[in-house]
């Protein structure tokens, strides 16, 4: 029998919303549940309104579900904003001293007073709240206490356990109605609870990335932080640069000299990097660039999500040169696609752009773990005197049928490695000669032939003969799949075509899938319908409509289903 539990913790920045959310998610994950959690916060250090949503189930989950079973309100604003999202049998648990109950099931708990009295520190009100929420479910307190202990550590951990117990006991004694949930540990959960950028960072290290340069920018910063933290143990050099321009140019320089290199940024930081994208293109230097999208233009909404950079990263920079664009669909996918990004970059000697976004970066999900024996590190064709001739004859940009010239690294052999941001000939020296120019442009573009073969076919979810095909890309995958399930519960005949490798564009596959559908709708987090334009450009095919969201908030499965129904059944504009 399916078990579903949906929580929200809300409050001001500084109240420990994130800690409660993380501890709750971790407790349920360790208890054997599949967990999905996302965060909503403002670009400020104190105050404002933040919330953390947690969904747990005995079945795999990949998106948030509405309505809520338990709303944990650390302040009144949370009650005001979210009480309508609580299910009929759900409960709002709130701080007696800071909030007013409304109609429905409310449990007032003196979070702050109990924290002060029992744990000796009012700051632990959030752990009291966590305990109270757990008390409403009847979950095993000792199991939760272990997580709290480990999360905070040391004496602080013990004090937080005391606070958790106080909240748990208070809720157990004082809540008289029917429990909104009955949860118990399902076993010893071995799954990993991580977010999209954890997976990107881990994927990069697994892929053998040993150089990273970056400049802090939300939501890409955690990649830089994670790699910095583990640089010593993982034999990496990680540089916090003076700006994003330096970051990409450093990654390119390190890569040229033989390291496996990456950088990570967001929107306007990526704008600064664009000059470097072209440098990687013309010098044929592998580089992996993570562009963690957030709503733009310019500074936009720093702590919100959007898929608004697709056409930008496909077209940014003057001139024609090959690149690859990958957009992970999920946390697990982020790990494997990051490895693929490094391999494509090295094999085809070009920039590979990974499009993540704030939602993927900050959403947590339980994953089964990663089989490291399946990780393949492909550095591409590298120069050796035995295979490619004497070093005196080495040409960095040798014209070949595949467009790929064997790569030598400066100082590792006696071959001189010469390249230039100016147009150059095979030897890498700058030229203005028309024939050599044409030859090099064509040689670089020929790499697209091989690169195109590497694109995995897009995923189709749902019945193959569906009347209506939804088309999505990147991080909306989890919500989209579940929306298909919701839509197909009635008389609907829907399926999903989902893209995670966007360039080179899998034109033939997309064309043949869309051919089978009566109607097709893109579902994207942007205002222009950028995927729709890309499909039109690459297949000549017009979609029938667009389900777009650009308020900075992520799609939810039920939200998509409602918008799609509106489009399909009430004939909407496109």
């Amino acid at each position, binding site marked *: 029998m399916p078990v579903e539990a949906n929580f929200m913790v809300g409050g001001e920045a500084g109240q420990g919303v994130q800690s409660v959310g993380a501890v709750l998610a971790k407790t349920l994950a360790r208890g054997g549940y599949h967990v999905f959690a996302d965060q909503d916060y403002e670009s400020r250090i104190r105050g404002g309104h933040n919330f953390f949503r947690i969904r747990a189930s005995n079945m795999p989950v990949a998106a948030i579900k509405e309505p809520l079973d338990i709303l944990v309100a650390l302040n009144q604003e949370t009650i005001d904003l979210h009480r309508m999202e609580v299910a009929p049998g759900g409960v709002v648990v709130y701080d007696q001293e800071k909030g007013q109950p409304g109609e429905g099931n409310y449990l007032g708990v003196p979070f702050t007073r109990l924290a002060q009295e029992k744990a000796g520190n009012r700051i632990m009100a959030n752990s009291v709240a966590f305990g109270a929420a757990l008390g409403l479910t009847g979950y095993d307190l000792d199991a939760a206490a272990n997580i709290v202990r480990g999360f905070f550590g040391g004496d602080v951990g013990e004090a937080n356990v005391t606070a958790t117990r106080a909240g748990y006991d208070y809720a157990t004694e004082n809540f008289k109605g029917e429990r909104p949930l009955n949860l118990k540990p399902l076993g010893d959960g071995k799954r*990993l609870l991580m977010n999209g950028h954890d997976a990107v960072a881990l994927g990069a290290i697994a892929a053998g990335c040993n*150089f990273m340069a970056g400049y802090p920018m939300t939501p890409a910063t955690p990649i830089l932080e994670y790699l910095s933290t583990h640089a*010593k143990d993982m*034999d*990496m050099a990680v540089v916090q640069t003076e700006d994003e321009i330096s970051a990409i140019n450093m990654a390119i320089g390190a890569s040229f000299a033989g390291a496996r290199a990456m950088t990570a940024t967001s929107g306007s930081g990526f704008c600064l990097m664009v000059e470097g994208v072209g440098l990687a293109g013309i*010098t044929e230097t592998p580089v992996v660039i993570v562009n963690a999208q957030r709503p733009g233009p310019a500074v936009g909404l720093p702590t919100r999500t959007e898929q608004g950079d697709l056409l930008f990263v496909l077209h940014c920079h003057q001139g024609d040169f090959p690149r690859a664009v990958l957009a992970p669909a999920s946390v697990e996918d982020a790990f494997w696609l990051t490895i693929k990004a490094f391999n494509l970059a090295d094999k085809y000697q070009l920039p590979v752009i990974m499009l993540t976004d704030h939602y993927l970066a900050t959403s947590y999900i339980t994953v089964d773990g990663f089989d490291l024996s399946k990780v393949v590190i492909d550095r591409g064709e590298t120069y050796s005197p035995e295979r490619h001739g004497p070093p005196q004859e080495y040409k960095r940009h040798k014209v070949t049928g595949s467009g790929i010239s064997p790569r030598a690294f400066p100082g590792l052999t006696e071959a001189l490695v*010469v390249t*230039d941001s100016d147009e150059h000939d095979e030897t890498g020296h*700058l030229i203005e000669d028309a024939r050599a120019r044409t030859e090099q442009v064509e040689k670089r573009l020929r790499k697209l032939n091989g690169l195109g073969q590497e694109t995995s076919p897009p995923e189709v979810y749902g019945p193959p003969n569906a009347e209506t095909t939804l088309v999505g890309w990147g991080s909306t995958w989890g919500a989209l799949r579940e929306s298909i399930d919701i839509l197909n519960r009635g008389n609907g005949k829907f399926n999903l075509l989902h893209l995670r490798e966007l360039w080179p564009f899998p034109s033939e596959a997309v064309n043949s899938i869309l051919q089978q559908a009566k109607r097709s709708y893109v579902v994207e987090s942007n205002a222009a319908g950028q995927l729709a334009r890309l499909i039109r450009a690459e297949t000549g095919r017009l979609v029938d409509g667009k389900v777009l969201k650009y308020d900075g908030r992520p799609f939810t499965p039920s939200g998509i289903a409602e918008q799609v129904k509106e489009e399909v059944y009430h004939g909407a504009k496109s």
Partner: protein
Amino acid sequence: MALRVEQPVTMESYAGLKPAWCPGCGNFGILRALNKALVEMKVQPWQLLMVSGIGQAGKLPHYSRGNTFNSLHGRAVPPAVAAKIANPELVVIVIGGDGDGYSEGGNHFLHVLRRNHDITHIVHDNQVYALTKGQASPTSDEGYVSKTTPGGALPPLNALGVAIMAGATFVARTFAGDLDHAARTIQEGVRHRGFALIDVLQPCVTFNHVNTFKWYSERVYKLDERGHNPQDKMAALEVVQQWGERIPIGVIYREQRPTYEDRIPALKKGPLAKQVIDPQRIAPLFQEFQ
């Protein structure tokens, strides 16, 4: 810097393509001085990485011989320092002009100094934008009239003063018209463990009719002949303020500090470029996610 000595290195080893510079250009002197310094240090071309920017100076690596990354305008320093991190066995020399290093590359210039990467940055300082045909540069003298500064240029950037205050560990100036001095200064810069900034007074025969060979020759004097102590920071800051009638050349400031590469634990196992990576190494990292 550890140099491996194998086959003999001669000026012939550094004979590159035929330069496309104007006849009489100050760049020829710098090219000769650089090659001479490399030959004297017995650096093999394959052990050398020249990273250049854009401008007439940026073409220099093509006219010498070695591993070459001819980068974007103003962006030579970031790839150069990263290449040094990837392979500290390389002798890394950045080559660019005053516009490239001090203007377009200004932010990199400021921050690379305090990080003290073990590379050498040679600035061909002709006080003018030559490749774009004669506009004022950040080091043009005050009042310099050009197409973009018809009313005369603003006061120049004191790049060497900025460098000392920004944490440079080696700051020198030399003159393209004095081959021996330039070659010696470049050698000292390359041998210095840390970031070496070498500003080279470079006459532009086509666009700068004020700061000519004659103009520089009449003004330069050698600091080492005047008992200047490069370890004295206050004295160095006094030296960088001299300009006009008398122009000091030589090593202006020098200090020893750990290099950026010294601070990277991963490099204790050798160059990153030579390290073989096993994906299994990440297995322990999964624990914190359980």
